[in-house]
């Protein structure tokens, strides 16, 4: 899922300083699961903002709403009547939701309320870790299901580098060396010899390096949509 973290309150208060009425808009998707921008976080942030502004003597009217998914124009359509009455929207969705929201309401200022961090997994209460960088051409088949692009600090394909020690990465003693994990898992599966083969240079054109990506599946396109 997409992991996000709420922006610091001072930054958000700064964004909203010139507004009198804002919509704090949550999303029921990933940010709800990672506790950054779901209904509850909308409620808490809403209170925090309203109280902070009351204290300053410049009251802020906070409308609170959480929709199913902000990365979906259909759900955003459903709140057009609320959006109409506010000065601006503070979106607690991921970067995708924030942009979709801005695209749906071209005449409204949309502020980002979270920092979108990475694509990852929830390891423990309050702990998330990166797992994928959407490189566009998955190599997990060759690496025992462990991603070298996202999980090796140097995204190398023929690791581990010389900094790997005791299974940890040279960059941070609390981070597992992805290549140590790959090596150990393939060893357990009896496949470690596959690592003797050199993994060829990667075609990054499928990744962000090829420019903004777009996926079109003709099998799903409606005739009229063409």
């Amino acid at each position: 899922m997409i992991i996000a973290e709420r922006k610091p309150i001072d930054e958000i208060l700064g964004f909203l300083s010139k507004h009198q009425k804002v919509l704090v808009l949550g999303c029921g998707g990933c940010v709800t699961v990672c506790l950054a921008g779901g209904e509850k976080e909308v409620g808490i942030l809403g209170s925090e903002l309203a109280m902070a502004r009351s204290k300053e003597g410049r009251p802020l009217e906070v409308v609170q709403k959480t929709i199913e998914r902000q990365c979906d124009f259909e759900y955003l359509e459903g709140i057009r009547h609320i959006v109409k009455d506010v000065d601006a929207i503070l979106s607690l969705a991921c970067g995708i939701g924030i942009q979709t929201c801005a695209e749906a309401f071209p005449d409204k200022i949309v502020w980002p309320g979270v920092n979108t961090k990475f694509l990852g997994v929830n390891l423990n209460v309050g702990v998330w870790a990166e797992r994928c960088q959407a490189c566009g051409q998955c190599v997990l088949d060759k690496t025992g299901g462990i991603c070298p692009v996202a999980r090796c600090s140097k995204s190398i394909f023929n690791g581990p580098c010389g900094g790997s020690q005791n299974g940890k990465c040279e960059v941070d003693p609390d981070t597992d060396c992805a290549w140590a994990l790959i090596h150990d898992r393939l060893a357990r599966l009896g496949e470690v010899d596959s690592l003797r083969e050199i993994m060829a240079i990667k075609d990054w054109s499928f990744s962000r390096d090829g420019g903004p990506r777009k996926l079109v599946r003709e099998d799903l396109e409606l005739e009229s949509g063409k």
Partner: protein
Amino acid sequence: MKAASKLQRMCESGNFVVTGEIGPPKSCNGEIVRHHAKMLKGWCESFNLTDNQTAIVRLSSIAAGKILLEEGLEPNIQIVCRDRNRIAAQSDILGASALGMKNVLCLSGDHQKFGNHPTAKNVFDVDSIQLIQILDGMRKGYFANGEQMKDEPPQLFIGCAANPFADPFEFRVTRLEKKADAGADFCQTQCILDMERFERWMELVRARGLHKRIKILGGITPIKSVKAAKYMKKFVAGMMVSDDLIERLEKAEDVKAEGLQIAIEQIERLKKMEGIAGVHIMAIAWEEKVPEICQRAGLAPRPEV
């Protein structure tokens, strides 16, 4: 075809090879490089020029290499994958070659987190093994995309690093094998501060016959203080320092003299070790001791090849 580099000729001659290292300064003061070049001239076949080592911005390795050439020393250009994509790397290799540099050492590069620009974006378009492959292709006349060069290909003697002290231990040998497969001609190891582990690694290297495919130069670093040894043991990832070595330094009256003595003994030992083609002396911030080390270890004068 132009003549092979002196380093290559030495490696092929079967003589015990000696390489050194010069770290370019954090300024445009080429005189610092020149000063070290003058001091070290004649003591080693070739000198590594580090490439923004530990991710700290320094005078470029190729520019420093040019200064070495002017001073009559042979450079060994280090090139890290952290700062260049395949386009920049190949371009730099062509440039270095045009200036007369023939030895190139491919490295992943220390992560920028440790350097003086930790907020930088890193590149890592290719890794060190893939870079070796690219250079091997280039000297055969092909760019990384498979396109054939229209002109004479660069003449390269390709090096790599190996770290017998990183993990997983046995895989370190496989990794060296991959580098040899990729086309590396020689390899300089991480500095040896745990001789026992190094010997075990060499056993595995010999068992696979790797020493016959790639020239292995053992890394030598004279240690200046007990503190430095302990620091390396504890904080430098992929570094091992044996307790014996620390104990010897601790007991010594003159720690610096003992550090030099240990380095010399290590060289003597490597000279006798099967599969070792030479040594790579990295006297970090202690370059002035290189002549003494070489002399006392019986590495001087260097043979003509």
